């Protein structure tokens, strides 16, 4: 490895963005947006995570093999949450 992958300045810029997004998250929680609270909260959290992963965890320069690991993990995470919830949600549907 030759030289830093990220500069000092970019770390502070990312921090600023993260803090702004945190404020947005709090504001959104109190905003009258009805059923959209959970999707909005998840979207903002997802955005923050992407910033951390790309810049702080250096995945901006990541190898495709590392992305395969992350992608497979997220896929299976979706399977776990999605399929269990699909049972819980549909339990009441039959007599």
């Amino acid at each position, binding site marked *: 490895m030759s030289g830093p992958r990220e500069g000092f300045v970019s770390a502070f810029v990312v921090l600023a963005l993260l*803090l702004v997004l945190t404020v947005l998250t709090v504001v959104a*929680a109190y905003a009258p947006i009805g059923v959209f*609270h*959970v999707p909005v909260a998840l979207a903002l959290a997802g955005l*923050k995570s992407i910033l951390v*992963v790309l810049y702080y965890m250096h995945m901006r320069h990541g190898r495709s093999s590392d992305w395969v690991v992350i992608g497979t993990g997220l896929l299976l995470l979706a399977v*776990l949450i999605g399929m*269990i919830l699909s049972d819980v949600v549909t339990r009441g549907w039959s007599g």
Partner: protein
Amino acid sequence: MSHGHKGVAPAHQFESVEQQQRVARFGMWMFLISETMIFGALFTGYAVYWTLYPEAFQEAAQFLDVTYGTVMTVVLLVSSTTVALAITALEGDRRRLAAGLFGVTIALGLVFFVLKIIEYAEKIGDGLLPTRGFEYPGAESADQAQVFFSWYFVITGTHAVHLIVGLAAIGFVIWPILRGTYHAKYFSPVEGTGLYWHLVDVIWIFVFPLLYLMGRAGGMG
């Protein structure tokens, strides 16, 4: 970038240091994904009970303190930044700066941990520890609210355990950095430690809105 380090030899099973660092990073990512599945299971359980008991959960979530949650979030975000800065410093072979930044990280982690303890103590003092002495003002949904607090303690508790492991790991790399064991040419264990700390941060990024901020505007989906 090497300032007079002796030649860096890879471990016996590797052909080069380059390969060794690449493998270490890859292995660390696999471990992090494993860790993520642990929290995935916890969030699944939490989501299932939200689906089963939406009103009770929404009511119970109001007992969490947004101020604590927000402050802890900011503390962790800053601590993640100091880790990122420390890695940048180490890549530039500024080892004292790196060690110092890791020191700041530890301090911030401890602040988070102390806040967590204070928060727990308050909850327990209010009778919200979800075990035999559970006292909850909303009487008719007390059982379901108890489940909410079970998951609150389990999720934040598991997160806290990871935080402690992360703090210990950082503590273990500071001295080798100063001593020069890790440097710009070879710092895989430091990078792994940093990645781990970032994961602790990412998990909290989800914990914060999903626990502390639910149902604040009244009426949620």
